[in-house]
């Protein structure tokens, strides 16, 4: 398998043979209102129906990068994003691109489970569909079951769909959030340390789930745990102080990292 040279700004050119490019960023930088850069000049590729893990020490810009892929930074008026991010060749930051539509296509699961506490399990899953005007009961019923099955939660909650989402355990809440994101059938699913607030069993559940999900959806996952990256991902990107140091097939990166910095990180030289 070939690795790519991140400096040449054509990160997608050298994905593994047979893998197709789904998302790509070119020279993407995010500057916070405080003047510091969260990421700087990141050119990165995301392969279709594969899991891409983002690793690196805390504060290196993983979340910042992830949130630039569905334009979450738009919500803070003092954050500036420069460069380009493509989804199927369309620039998400083009002036005529509607950020709301971007977020419908690129879903997100957060570090802390964020069920809507006043909504039932059923309504939590429906939330995104209702936004686009889907209100027919049969359609919603079908989507709720499909999404909860997809998130491996159906069997545990099928008898109490009317109870509040907040009544579930942490791991179940996170799977509910995954189901909620899946319900709108996103093309790409972004996950920001989705297991960091969960116990080991719940973590294993989510990791299995990620394995199953990549059949249908492209996944980008931030993890502070490199073992998790090794377990779940096909590609791994190593970030360091706001820059992308290396993007490689996961196996390759863990066996034979190309950059010295990556090797130091992986061998626990710093963290």
């Amino acid at each position: 398998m070939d690795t790519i040279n991140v400096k040449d700004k054509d990160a997608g050119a050298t994905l593994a043979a047979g893998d197709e490019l789904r998302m790509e960023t070119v020279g993407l930088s995010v500057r916070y209102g405080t003047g510091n850069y969260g990421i700087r000049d990141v050119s990165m590729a995301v392969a279709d129906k594969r899991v891409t893990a983002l690793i690196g020490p805390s504060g290196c810009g993983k979340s910042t990068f992830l949130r630039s892929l569905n334009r979450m930074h738009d919500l803070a008026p003092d954050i500036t994003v420069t460069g380009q991010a493509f989804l199927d060749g369309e620039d998400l930051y083009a002036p005529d691109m509607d950020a709301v539509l971007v977020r419908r296509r690129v879903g997100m699961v957060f570090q802390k489970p964020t069920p809507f506490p006043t909504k039932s399990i059923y309504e939590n899953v429906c939330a995104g569909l209702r936004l686009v005007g889907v209100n027919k009961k049969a359609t919603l019923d079908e989507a709720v079951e499909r999404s909860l099955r997809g998130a491996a939660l159906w069997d545990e909650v099928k008898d109490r769909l009317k109870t509040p989402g907040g009544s579930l355990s942490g791991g179940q809440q996170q799977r509910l959030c995954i189901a909620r994101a899946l319900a709108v059938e996103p093309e790409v699913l972004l996950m920001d340390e989705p297991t960091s607030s969960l116990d080991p069993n719940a973590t294993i559940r989510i990791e299995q789930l990620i394995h199953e999900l990549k059949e249908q959806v492209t996944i980008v996952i931030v993890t502070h745990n490199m073992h998790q990256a090794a377990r779940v991902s096909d590609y791994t990107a190593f970030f360091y102080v706001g820059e992308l140091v290396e993007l490689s097939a996961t196996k390759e990166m863990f066996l034979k990292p190309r950059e010295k910095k990556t090797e130091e990180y992986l061998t626990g030289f710093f963290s």
Partner: protein
Amino acid sequence: MGPAQKSAAAALPRAFRGPGDRVFKYAIVGLSSAVVALALVMAVVIYIEARPTFKAFGYLSFLTETTWDPVKSIHGALPFIIGTFVTSFAALALAAIPAIAVAIFTSEYAPKWLAAVINYTVDLLAAIPSVVVGLWAIFNFAPLMRDAVYMPIYLWAEASAPWLATMLGAPSTFNMTTGTIVLALMIVPYTVALSRDAIGQVPRDQREAMWALGATKWEVIRQAVIPYARTGIAAGVLLSLARALGETMALAMLIGNSNRLPFTLFGPAATMPSLIINEFREAVEPLHYSSIMAVGFYLFIITIGINLVTSFVQRKLYMGRGMV
């Protein structure tokens, strides 16, 4: 004293424990008990002073009797209870929606500087003594409303809808509607501030979760912010109601003080606080005096009741969310 404080005290070096700690504890416990005791004593004294009235008219009959006539020694509280509830709920109905809208606008839409200006102005409004608001209304607002609004409506109703004219009543300068509008003005700052706090408590991740589903700004507010803040807003509205029920000065100055039912919209009326403030000086007859006390006693009960309901709603809010 909670376990947290105990363990904090246990962690202190020996020299800092002992007498100082104990003195502090007694001082705190003493002062807090004094406050509670004061409230209790007040309630008991008011009750004792009101007892002749309860003896003469009965606890319930006093509430349902429609005549208040000190000369004939007949005392019923119904006109004032109706006056209090009608003005308070009507004022709340007038104030709530605009106040919540202002709270949503300042916390979600307005640029920071504009939000700051609006919030500052609203807080300032709350700081104006109600007697000053009353003064302004007596000399400006009330006559203006009578001449420019009530009169034309009444004349029109008299000519083309006599049944409506009887309900409206002949416009007097000081009347129920003017009192209600001014009362609404006075509670708006409270409802705004309390709704703003409730909205401010909505965690960022709730909004982001809704954004991430592809919601527009308005959808985030409708689907994530308002549902989450709903209980807090309701508690704020209830607290505003408690305030409206107890508001004395502005209403006493503006409502016209008629003790006779039925009230009309454009005619004078009275509330429980306005009755008390207007008659306590003239209460020479023992039964008159004790009846005023009885009105005060029931007002006390009503506002305490509303506050209890509010704190129950707030407790439910925090426990239901698993928040501390």
